């Protein structure tokens, strides 16, 4: 099996070289010290990845994506002063975007709206072999996002980092500043909740079926 760099970016779309990560760390340090050009450079590099994370949580065509993206940038700049470099800057930015998106989803006043737009969401990826695969993937996304709304924040964060961003337990522990055993425990609880949700509704039993 090829070596997988645990420090690299969480999903296939976030791959970058170690040199790039180091460059971002320097840029992040400068931005944290008050350099506006450095902040712009940082946002230019991590912005597209943050947008992708936000779209994964909210759906690609949700009208609040713009606002949440800007809120995420502000939250990232706020948090830079406390960033210790335990994880890569890109991973840190992913986490900020994820938490901002989850917080937006959790707002009860807009939850119904999110569900509405989630239903409208249409993601077409050529890697799927059939319309049925696309539909099942969409339903799985909706189901997991609904679960994340209801779980305790720490559990939801761990589950989202693992499922949505594809982070390993070590990466989650680094970015969330939590012991690995705690992350394992949170993931276990999250998966138990997912199983419970699946078992309570016979109409979604096919979520577990392999459609491909």
């Amino acid at each position, binding site marked *: *099996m*090829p070596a*997988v760099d645990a420090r690299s970016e969480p999903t*296939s*779309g976030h*791959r970058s070289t170690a040199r790039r990560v180091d460059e971002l760390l320097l840029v992040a340090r400068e931005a944290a010290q008050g350099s*506006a050009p450095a*902040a*712009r450079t*940082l*946002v*230019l590099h991590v*912005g*597209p990845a943050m*947008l*992708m994370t936000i*779209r*994964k949580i909210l759906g*690609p065509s949700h*009208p*609040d*994506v*713009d*606002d949440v*993206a*800007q809120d*995420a*940038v*502000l*939250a990232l*700049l*706020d*948090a830079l002063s*406390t960033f210790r470099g335990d994880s890569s800057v890109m991973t840190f930015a992913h986490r900020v975007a994820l*938490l901002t998106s989850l917080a937006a989803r959790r707002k009860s006043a807009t939850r119904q709206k999110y569900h509405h737009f989630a239903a409208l969401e249409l*993601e077409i*990826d050529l*890697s799927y072999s059939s319309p049925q695969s*696309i539909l*099942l*993937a969409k339903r799985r*996304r909706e*189901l*997991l996002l609904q679960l994340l709304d209801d779980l305790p*924040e720490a559990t939801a964060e761990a589950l989202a980092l693992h*499922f*949505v961003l*594809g*982070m*390993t*337990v*070590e990466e989650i522990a680094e970015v969330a*500043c939590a012991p690995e055993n705690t992350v*394992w425990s949170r993931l276990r609880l999250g*998966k138990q909740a*997912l*199983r419970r949700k699946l078992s309570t509704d016979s109409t979604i039993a096919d*979520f*577990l079926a*392999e459609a491909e």
Partner: protein
Amino acid sequence: MTSDFCRSELVLAGRRRRLSASDQLALQLHLRECESCRLTHLFGGAFDATSQIHADDDRRLDEMLAASDRWFVQPRTLVRGNSRNQRLKVIGFAAVILATATAAAAAIAIRASESNLPPLAVTGSSGATQAQRHAAGQKPMPLGAGMSVTTVTPQAQPPEASTAAATKLTAPHVNRASPDANNVELAAEQLLKLATQARRDGSFAEASRLYRRLQRLYPASRETGLSRVTYGSLLLEQRQASPALYQFNRYLSTDSTQNLAAEALYGKARALAMLGRSAEEMVTWQLLLDKFPKSPYISNAKKRLASTP
């Protein structure tokens, strides 16, 4: 790499598309046996299909850069719930305030017992500290910095306490920790007034600073809702279309009253025109026409719609 109790690293490597042919076979075999990894594979894989790039990403990235610029003009200081260091700072600050209030109350109690003065009611953030002194005059007690005294007249006291004077002593900085709704509204109102005045005086930088301060400190207030439209218009005057658009969009999506929806739509359409996003501009003009057919901006809307083929 995760190596605990199952080969979940295969699932993650598969999601990162870093599996060799033999590893892919191993993954398939593993998924048949491990229900936990099957969950991760099915539900996590559903998110991997999300497109990397979206048609609006360039515009969104531009707005994110504008947000970054705004942050440097007036940085926010969020106390994030998941930051251990910041939580400790808040707890430490509260402890210092509590200790200061307790020490002041103790000093007052000692002075009262020494000078044979009437009882004194002392309230701090905890609301539990009481200093008693004997009834002998109503002179206010000497106080430390940042403390204030409210003397309660003897007539206001019940008969059994008529011989005693109760003085409420509060630390203003403690009270600010739990402001009531009226105080918040007053402060927001003052900020909006100051910002409006600065705008009328032609001081763009000062007005911008005050509007941002208002929006940062009181994001849910009525004044912040109003400021979205006025600040957006101010930004438009300065040809800053992208942040102006953000303000108008924010008003339209968050303000519960929507009293200025027509103005916000008018500003949004102008901002979109400035950004060259004509298709969205036309949709906005049409929305303005449909929703507010009697607004004063209708003639502009009709002209713009007519000028576009």
